[in-house]
């Protein structure tokens, strides 16, 4: 394990936990440290426990761990909630003058730093800055150069004017000095080394929005829902600069239909939602496929069914994305694995949608959408973005796709399953698109032969994609291991970190992370070569395990988590170890 450091701030929703955490995370990133953040939040605006956790290292960090080195506790509950993660020597920063915190007992072996957060904040110009006082105290406790914090404060409060920035800097100084003056002997031996690297810090929703703009998306329609709303928030105010537009629809039915309309007009178009919204969009999703409209639909999954646990992690919508909608719908389902992949898979989603004239699901999840991760900026290299608009016809080429009487054939039967596309305004291209079964011209038909030809044509796109696209999984771990661990979505990073814990236990594994869920790679050979196959996912029934069992006709072992919290590296390693051990016992 790289020497990493874990910090958290916890309190009640409404205490400014998020923004404080973000300021600290940004300061670390600006100091050239890698950061991985996670959030504990409840589905309420005020009150209720909430925390923002920052894991940081000079090396890449990919997941959360069960460990806390410094905790800023704004409420007694913050200590209770995190007791398991605190350890001998952990530092707890709290405000003993706050009535609710007056009688807290710092657990045996830990270091309590009683800092009058509110009073010092008032000295600096206002009680609202009490969290910033705590950040100053944290800097002192970790020997972290407070100037990095200054720079982050400037970024966050710069818009509000220099005096606000100065007050915040002052608040941080007061926190720092208080610890220096009052705890000169406390043995706080955390040192946060800095490096010369310049990282960027962003979350999955933001990366999806950025990917959309990079891909030339011009139209976004959505309806607010946790944890997908940030995609809309990101795009609003940015996409306009690139000639695009964001609409807040009246509901998800309108959102997907607005997006469909814009896509029919020829714009690269997208909507994003979470499970309940996906349910509502299902009927139109079928229309999108039948009318052969390119459209990107993002599902940032959260715990279901129904309203489930809106602020908690789950990968429970896979079946809905693979099979949802009546009838049989050719589609793509892509699963990004990291914040960076959220960007690239979004770009790819637009290309696939236009190349194959079909809807594309982007299967993101809460754990990736709301966590921030640091990257080298060139991980988002705009020069590497390519746009492929597929078979768009113009006024000249249209003649090759017309009937003798001049009717355009938007659903022409082709070998690769993809037909020519005429964007409205193209002369000679006027045509009807419909959810009804249709002939090559888009005219309704119940002709049995044409029905079969059209169904086959649409499905052929998937076969073509299997041939033309590189659907390979990403590989990690020991390529020669007999133990194969397969996963999808945000678990990838956790699994990669779990490798070290597995190594410690003398277990080698080969990891396959599958970013194409439909069409997906054929894993039969890999499965046959392995003694054990374990599928890791955040749902109760093992939806992906089911599909790969079906694909490969082989039984797999399952490691599932569905309590609402994403996997942690050490815990996941333990689960895999037990699963492998259990199967060996059975065989023995």
């Amino acid at each position, binding site marked *: 394990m790289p020497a990493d450091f874990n910090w958290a701030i916890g309190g009640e929703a409404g205490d400014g936990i998020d923004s404080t955490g973000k300021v600290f995370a940004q300061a670390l990133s*600006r100091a050239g440290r890698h950061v991985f953040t996670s959030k504990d939040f409840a589905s309420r605006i005020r009150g209720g426990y909430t925390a923002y956790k920052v894991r940081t290292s000079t090396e890449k960090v990919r997941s959360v761990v069960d460990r806390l080195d410094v905790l800023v506790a704004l409420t007694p509950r913050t200590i209770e909630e995190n007791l398991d993660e605190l350890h001998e020597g952990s530092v707890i920063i709290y405000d003993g003058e706050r009535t609710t915190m007056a009688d807290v007992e710092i657990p045996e072996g830990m270091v309590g730093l009683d800092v009058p957060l509110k009073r010092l904040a008032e000295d600096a110009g206002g009680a609202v800055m009490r969290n910033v006082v705590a950040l100053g105290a944290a800097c002192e406790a970790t020997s972290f150069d407070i100037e990095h914090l200054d720079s982050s404060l400037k970024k966050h409060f710069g818009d509000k004017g220099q005096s606000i920035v100065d007050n915040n800097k002052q608040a941080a100084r007061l926190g720092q000095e208080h610890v220096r003056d009052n705890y000169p002997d406390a043995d706080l031996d955390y040192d946060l080394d800095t490096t010369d690297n*310049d*990282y*960027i810090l*962003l979350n999955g929703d933001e990366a999806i929005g*950025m990917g959309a*703009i*990079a*891909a*030339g998306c*011009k*139209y976004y*329609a959505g309806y607010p829902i946790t944890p997908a709303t940030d995609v809309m928030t990101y795009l609003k105010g*940015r996409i306009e*600069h*690139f*000639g*695009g*537009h964001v*609409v807040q*629809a*009246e509901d998800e*039915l*309108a959102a997907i*239909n*607005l997006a*469909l*309309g*814009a*896509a*029919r*007009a*020829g*714009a*690269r*178009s997208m909507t994003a939602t979470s499970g309940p919204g996906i349910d509502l969009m299902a009927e*139109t999703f079928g*229309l999108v496929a039948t009318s052969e409209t390119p459209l990107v639909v993002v599902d940032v999954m959260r715990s279901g069914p129904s309203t489930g646990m809106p602020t908690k992690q789950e990968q429970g919508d896979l079946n809905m994305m693979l099979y949802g909608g009546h009838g049989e719908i050719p589609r793509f389902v892509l699963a990004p694995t990291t914040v960076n992949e959220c960007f690239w898979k979004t770009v790819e989603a637009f290309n696939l949608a236009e190349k194959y004239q079909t809807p594309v699901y982007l299967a993101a999840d809460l754990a990736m959408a709301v966590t921030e991760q640091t990257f080298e*900026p060139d991980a*988002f290299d*705009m*020069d590497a*973005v390519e*746009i492929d*608009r597929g078979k768009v016809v113009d006024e000249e080429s249209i003649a090759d796709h017309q009937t003798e*009487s001049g009717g355009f054939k938007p659903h022409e039967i082709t070998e690769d399953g993809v037909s020519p596309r005429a*964007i*409205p*305004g*193209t*002369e*000679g*291209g*006027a045509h*009807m*698109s*419909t*959810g009804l079964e249709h002939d090559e011209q888009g*005219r*309704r038909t119940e002709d049995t032969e044409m029905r079969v030809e059209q169904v086959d044509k649409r499905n052929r796109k998937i076969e073509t994609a299997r041939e033309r696209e590189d659907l390979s999984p990403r590989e990690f771990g020991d390529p020669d291991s007999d133990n194969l661990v397969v996963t999808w979505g945000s678990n990838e990073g956790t699994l990669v970190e779990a490798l070290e814990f597995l190594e410690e236990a003398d277990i080698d594994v080969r990891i396959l992370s599958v970013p194409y869920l439909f069409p997906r790679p054929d894993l039969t050979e890999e499965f046959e070569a392995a003694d054990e196959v374990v599928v890791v996912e955040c749902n109760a029934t093992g939806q992906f395990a089911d599909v790969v069992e079906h694909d490969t006709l082989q039984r797999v072992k399952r490691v599932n988590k569905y309590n609402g919290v994403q996997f942690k590296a050490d815990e996941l390693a333990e689960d895999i170890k037990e699963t492998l051990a259990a199967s060996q016992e059975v065989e023995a």
Partner: protein
Amino acid sequence: MSSQVRFTDFKSDKQPTWCPGCGDFGTMNGMMKALAETGNDPDNTFVVAGIGCSGKIGTYMHSYAIHGVHGRALPVGAGVKMANPDLEVMVAGGDGDGYSIGAGHFVHAVRRNVDMSYIVMDNRIYGLTKGQASPTSREDFETSTTPDGPQQPPVNPLALALASGATFIAQSFSSDALRHQEIVQQAIEHDGFGFVNVFSPCVTFNDVDTYDYFRDSLVDLAETDYDPTDRDAAKEKVLDADKEYMGVLYQDEDSQSYEQTHGLDSDMSEIDHEGAPEDATDLVREFY
């Protein structure tokens, strides 16, 4: 091209399968004539159709078109128009499609005021599903699913539109060809959401709201001294339960379309870069 466009250019080569005598024939003819008359041609026109007998209209017309899912035609039309304001967008559907399953979208389409026209073929019945009560059916109108009548008051689409902030509200009658065409033309020319409720009789399932009924009861506002820009007068008219009106009931002459207020004037189908747009690297810089 537009100078030579005749309304028959908007006809597709599919023969309508509507029952002989169905009001939708006249409604459609008027729409095609109005489109041609206002200088549009099939290649710059986008028709969005709902589901129902009325929704089949997209199939019988020739233009860029989509026949969507039940009740969702309005958001599709708005999406098309926002993405390319150069297109002439016309949305058409039935009273069931628009005021029942699609009622929510109706209210919001009115509020949004996208520059398109919305033609509702109101036959006060569900035609395609063979004669059930629609939201505009009379309280005592007996149907297979409501043998004693719906026993609830009908939706008042005109009042609903006015209450939602409509900038253009009109009512027409499919068999009064000239007036119908004129009214649709006014809706097209209106800068904003041009809503026209068209009485388009169903000769198969509705023997109450017939051609004769409308012919006898309709009052043409053009033949009175009615001022459609007077919102208070419009309030009175749309709430008048004793009469059926034809003509423009309300028009806000200062109406500004959604595209105007949101500065939408470009064709979003165009992407002039092979990779990410220029300036896109600034997006990354933001996260330092």
